[in-house]
């Protein structure tokens, strides 16, 4: 019994079980839910969430209450930038990706500098940045949708490329590989875990914690920008609040995937499972025809429940 309990507390196991249960529930509620093409569709949506959650997970693993609430507007900004750079032209896809990623990376770095140099709490800093970028987007776009995805990009995200799977899933796999390499095969990754686990101890081994943390926020921005490119590829065009819906799920996916909000623990495979589980949950809730408010409450409750499991602070003692 005790072993089952510890096994259930293992985030990877928990997320996997959640995925299976949700698939079964979906199939039960609406036969065909777990069919191949449906699963591919779900995976495509999960991939988009998974890519933004990659950046979010880095920031959270890095510790000191790390969180990035600006990913939503950075997705919108990425989609907006990419859409306007390529404007439906296949040849402009690469410059579009580079511009979108560059811009959002730079904004992420500004977040990081605010958190490290000015010691503004990450949540407040990124929330403030959210307001700025949102305002900037309104000014840039004058409130109207602009920019179009190139047909090739849309095909890449939506149409089967290889083995019946769309290209974006291969990109996701590549990102997973890159995240694994970054976190487990470079000293950067080891330092990120060390810093998230105990920043003081990490600094006392000589690790440049300020620089590392700034880079983490930059990477979070970069991943959000790339997600923006995927989003415009998925929908064809963008509107200025297209990224808002990803902020909360990116955090929940990270927490479901076993990344402790206290920092220093978790890995990207867990986060991928978390993204899939969350996408499934959303899909099942939609199948249930649960209204928006119900989904909101369930999301909030899931987040609070996960806080209970992973996010408690130490008791006051002398």
């Amino acid at each position: 019994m005790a072993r089952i309990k510890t096994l259930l507390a293992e985030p990877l196991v928990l997320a996997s079980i959640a995925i299976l249960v949700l698939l079964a529930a979906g199939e039960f509620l609406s036969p065909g839910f777990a069919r191949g093409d449906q699963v591919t569709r779900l995976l495509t949506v999960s991939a988009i969430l998974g890519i933004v959650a990659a950046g979010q997970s880095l920031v959270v693993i890095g510790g000191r209450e790390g969180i990035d609430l600006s990913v939503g507007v950075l997705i919108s900004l990425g989609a907006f930038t990419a859409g306007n750079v390529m404007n439906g032209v296949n040849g402009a896809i690469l410059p579009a990706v580079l511009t979108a990623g560059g811009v959002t990376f730079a904004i992420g770095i500004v977040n990081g500098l605010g958190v490290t140099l000015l010691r503004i709490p990450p949540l407040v800093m990124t929330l403030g940045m959210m307001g700025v970028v949102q305002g900037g987007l309104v000014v840039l776009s004058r409130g109207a949708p602009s920019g179009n995805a190139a047909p090739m990009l849309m095909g890449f995200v939506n149409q089967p490329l290889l083995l019946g799977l769309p290209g974006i899933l291969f990109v996701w796999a590549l990102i997973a590989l890159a995240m694994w390499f970054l976190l487990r095969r470079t000293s950067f990754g080891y330092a990120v875990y060390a810093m998230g686990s105990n920043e003081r101890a990490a600094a006392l081994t000589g690790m440049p914690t300020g620089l590392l943390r700034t880079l983490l926020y930059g990477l979070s921005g970069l991943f959000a920008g790339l997600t923006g490119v995927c989003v415009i590829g998925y929908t064809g065009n963008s509107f200025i609040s297209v990224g808002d819906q990803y902020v909360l799920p990116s955090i929940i996916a990270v927490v479901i995937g076993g990344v402790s909000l206290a920092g220093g623990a978790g890995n990207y495979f867990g986060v991928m499972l978390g993204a899939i589980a969350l996408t499934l949950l959303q899909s099942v809730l939609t199948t249930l025809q649960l209204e928006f408010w119900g989904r909101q409450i369930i999301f909030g409750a899931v987040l609070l429940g996960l806080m209970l499991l992973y996010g408690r602070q130490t008791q006051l003692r002398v």
Partner: protein
Amino acid sequence: MPPALRAQGITKRFDAVVALSDGALTVERGEIHALLGANGCGKSTLCKIIAGTVLRDGGSVQVDGVPLEPKRPADAEAAGIALFYQELSLVPQLTVAENIFLGHEPRTRAGFVDRRKLEDDAGRLLGPFQAVAGSGLDLHTPVARLAPDQRQIVEILKVLARRPRLIIFDEATAALDRRQVEFFFRMLRELKAQGIAMIFISHRLDEVFEICDRITVMRNGATVATYPAAETDVNRVVHAMVGAMAEHLHPPQVERPANEQPRLVVDRARGRRLRDVSLTLRPGEILGLGGLQGQGQSALLRGLFGADPLDSGRVNLDGAPLRLRKPADAVRHGIAYVSGDRGRDAALHGRSIFENIAAASFIRERRVLVWPGRLAERFRQAAAALNTKYAGLEAPIGSLSGGNQQKIFIARWLATRPAVLLLDDPTKGIDLAAKADFFDLVQRLAAEGASILFYSSEDAELLGLCNRILVFNGGAIAAELSGGTMTALHLTRAAYGDAA
């Protein structure tokens, strides 16, 4: 009439470490009672148990004959006990007056803070000190702006404002100058006349003999003796504190060429807690830093590691000047720092043993790519050098006992092949077997030519391991012990200042 306080047979363990095996203390009404003992003897733990901030494992405490079972500080406070905290309980943003009456603000009938009474009362308490407090100690000043001695005065007044009947002064005079101490003592005598019982802990023996009626001495977690102050003297008290300590074994001196260049030269290092510290450390030498806790030993080690950079002073390593602005500067020059506060300064909680060892090597070697398989063998050797017991490099650090964890954090630095080891009370809270392994290793490293600066809060460790000992007092080196003067008696005397 029962005594104001009677504590008997108090025991307390922190994990594997026994802090108190038999703590006892009896204080009469209107008595100032000194509690003395070498570092780590358990006197602070005993006081915290009486004040309710630490729960005891066994034994009994009676206040005026009534059993006391405090669960939290408020319970002890209700029984009339007040503990002087070394400025830990002040809120920097609040004013002096607000701090003094925090939680006990006088109120008007409407339930508002009676500012006038608050200030009058605070002013009355502060009055006697005003003449010696220096400029800026005003009722309306935020505590953050006060000097350390002024904060200490505020902390004292805060204790008095509670009108306690038993007060524990733990190093209450540490930051005060002589004139301030005199005023403080005048106040203590007044309290004494009112029948208030006081426990007085100080590292200044002259003060103890000046103000205290009786003296209780503790050693190794147990109370060993109580003397009336008038019937004893400094020598007897110091001997009781030191006990029949086994005469240490002088470590084998490794012969080194006399003209060998010193490894590390520190010239007039200054910092927040350091006053002009100079020293020379040779290859193969174990240089001890002694004295009471908090006299600048840690500040020096952390300064030399770049963790709390020195304000001024020169540091030369192997003849070349060294700039130490951040730990990486030190690590890349082969300087290692082992802290005794493992949980705070060293442990990467929740991470594997491999990661805990690897952390410093990345910086030392400016490594970018990490191939765990290739590093594992080296790390295993480093851990084996200390007889570390662990399941495997992938096991989490938390699966190890405190002693084995500390071995891992030392292995972290062994893997970087350091030339200079800065040991900052590294054996705090680890078991005897682990200590023995650790001392073996330190001697071996010295024999291989590493230079070691070793601060320990346990005098026996310094005496048993070091070639020389620098005794710190108030941020400066007060004495240097070597050869025949390396005895417990000399060390305790030097630590307690000129009085002994």
